[in-house]
């Protein structure tokens, strides 16, 4: 068992639990600050400090084990800035970041975002790529972001890092990544009705005929 402090109040919980499980063990019926419980959704951003230590740490509560004398405050919501745009009209030029998220140019290079990232991403680096209009690099560097918002909560320049990364990724996916010829061709075939006859034919098969086909189908190596 270890002692933890939820919003300052002391509870004794098994040392093997994650922070989320420890809160529930203590009796909390959670509505906020809990989501996928697998480290993908960013709902359970949490700030903590171990008693006697200087450093303030951030984590996902579902992915982090409790420690003795851990002071815990969840961050279920943080007011991030989201600028609306039309993905069909924007272009992957430097101007778009300047228009939508000009505050990224106010970055003072303190690196608090990177230090606090719950996914261990190099956040300040991907913001630097965004400043320079290098969206593919920004997209790659920010790809594993779960948008928990901890980075933004620590930023003295008021940058909304997760939205910057998301914009860079959408620009990359739509405009910068190479086009997929085989996809365009197949869509054209479907729209021209070229796949229809084979589909109608297989839909007419009896269950027995289908089973026969299924059990004897060939596999791509």
């Amino acid at each position, binding site marked *: 068992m270890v002692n933890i402090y939820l919003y300052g109040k002391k509870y004794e919980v098994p040392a093997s*639990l994650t922070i989320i*499980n420890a809160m*529930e063990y203590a*009796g909390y*019926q*959670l*509505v*906020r600050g*809990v*989501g*996928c*419980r*697998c*480290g*993908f*959704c960013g*709902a359970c951003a949490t700030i903590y400090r171990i008693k006697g230590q200087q450093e303030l740490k951030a984590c996902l509560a579902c*992915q982090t*084990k409790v420690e003795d004398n851990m002071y815990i405050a969840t961050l279920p919501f943080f007011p991030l800035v*989201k600028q*609306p745009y*039309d*993905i069909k009209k924007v272009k992957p030029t430097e101007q778009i970041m300047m228009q939508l998220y000009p505050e990224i140019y106010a970055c003072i290079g303190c690196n608090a975002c990177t230090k606090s990232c719950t996914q*261990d991403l190099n956040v300040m680096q991907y913001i630097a790529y965004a400043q320079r209009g290098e969206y593919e690099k920004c*997209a790659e560097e920010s*790809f*594993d972001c*779960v*948008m928990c918002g901890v980075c933004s909560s620590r930023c003295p320049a008021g940058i909304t890092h997760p939205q910057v990364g*998301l914009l860079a*990724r*959408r620009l*990359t*996916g*739509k405009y910068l*990544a*190479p086009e*997929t*010829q*085989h*996809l365009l061709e*197949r*869509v054209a075939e*479907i729209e021209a009705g070229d*796949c229809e006859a*084979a*589909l109608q034919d*297989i*839909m007419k098969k009896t*269950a027995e005929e*289908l*089973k026969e*086909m*299924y*059990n004897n*189908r*060939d*596999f*791509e*190596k």
Partner: protein
Amino acid sequence: MYTNEMLESIKKVEATREARLAAVRAGNHPRRMTAEEKDQVLLENHPDHIKSQFAELVIGPNKGEKVPLELAEILQANPRVKSGDVDLTKIDYDVDVLIIGGGGAGSAAAIMAHENGANVMIVTKLRHGDANTMMAEGGIQAADKPNDSPAQHYLDVMGGGHFKNVPELVYKLVNDAPICIKWLNDLGVMFDKEADGTMVTTHGGGTSRKRMHACKDYSGAEIMRVLRDEVQNREIPVVDFTSAIEIIKDENGKAAGALLMNMETKELLVARAKTVVIATGGAGRMHYQGFPTSNHYGATADGLVLAYRAGAPLLYAHTLQYHPTGAAFPSQIFGALVTEKVRSIGAQLINADGEAFMYPLETRDVCASSVIRECRRGKGVETFDGGQGIWLDSPMIELLHGEGTIEKRIPAMMRMYLKYGIDMRKQPILIYPTLHYQNGGIKIGENGMSDVENLFVAGEAVGGIHGENRLMGNSLLDIIVFGRNAGVNAAATAKNTKTAEKLTLSHVDAFVKEMADAGIKTDVVSPKLLPNYTNQKPI
């Protein structure tokens, strides 16, 4: 960190690894099961076949059919409010299309309804994007390569579902698949591609062609965050932390809105709509048969309860998917998903004796049953609290495809295990089946409408698309295909529907009477909305 016993067991896995790798390099994978062997392993080991875990429904549209005990309990339960407690003349929200659920299906439906000119609103009980979609790791299927075809995809889907799938729905699924990949690509989803634009595709369990498209192992997260961003760009209203607790109907018995409840203040709100889309997702948090789950916190089958009370029949509600590879160790991630992609890119399933006891990419139901059988035979590895697991030999991946493959292709998995001191590049990981997917759900027609007029359904809440077992990568596909479909048709139907003059919950009163007449006495209220893990052994 592994126990000493586990480390001893790993030595047996390592002892056979070189020989197994050599066989795979020579094209010799462990043998696939015959159709008869599959039938047998399913019958003897799959949780769907344990009769004592099912109850017969005594009221409602599926009266006489069997469903899991836990589902029967909430389908035949008390509503959260009595109809007399609510003033339905006081309308809080008035829209064309009301979408219940803010996951992938609901968001796709919202975008398409908006695209088609409808005034649309999403209501979701947690945050927008808190959904199983966000957690889908492995990928999305589409027959878009020259050696593949929608008809070939159709055959795989039907076989995987034991030929119980609704053919018209499967047709739509496979035919629209490439169109949906293009739609996502054009919205800015970053699929894994070669330098020339060719999609990087792999096998999934039960696929005959490599048609699994992916975005690393964040496939669902990437799709979900793009769809959410698009909903926000279109400024579609999202009412979060608000659950739907009943479908509201008009005087003619058509769906005409929903009764909502603020999850924090418990305030009741009335939403009136011309059409309603249920996109509430799955049921992993019901923990059927005591299984852990890979699902989101909110996966409590709410949509099935709402629809059933409104008179919509379910289809195949007795079939659940247990994903063969849930994390069996350490306890902190018990039941969390270990993506099928780990096997797609080369890891084998290995028992305590170091044997590759099966072909690793059988369909999920067969694979899960085979893992359970292996443990019953005493070939499992002890985990904690009396549990067992089987090794998933992840170091094979880098030995087959080169150093760095794991970090590049399955970074989320690597990260999850590293947090507990396990480096899956160097050591195998322990897995056991976890409750993953609701194969059955609400019955729909090709237009996405249930048997209740103007009540549409999309996503995991639908039954019939996947028959009795879904293949990997067909769920991300289904939420996009049928989410879009529901959005388009709900918007079109709304155009021809007048705003309801009188709203009613009389069907709820009728259901309560039916319960009383059948002699059902219960304290259970539903929809369940959230699981309760307080002061208990956490699952």
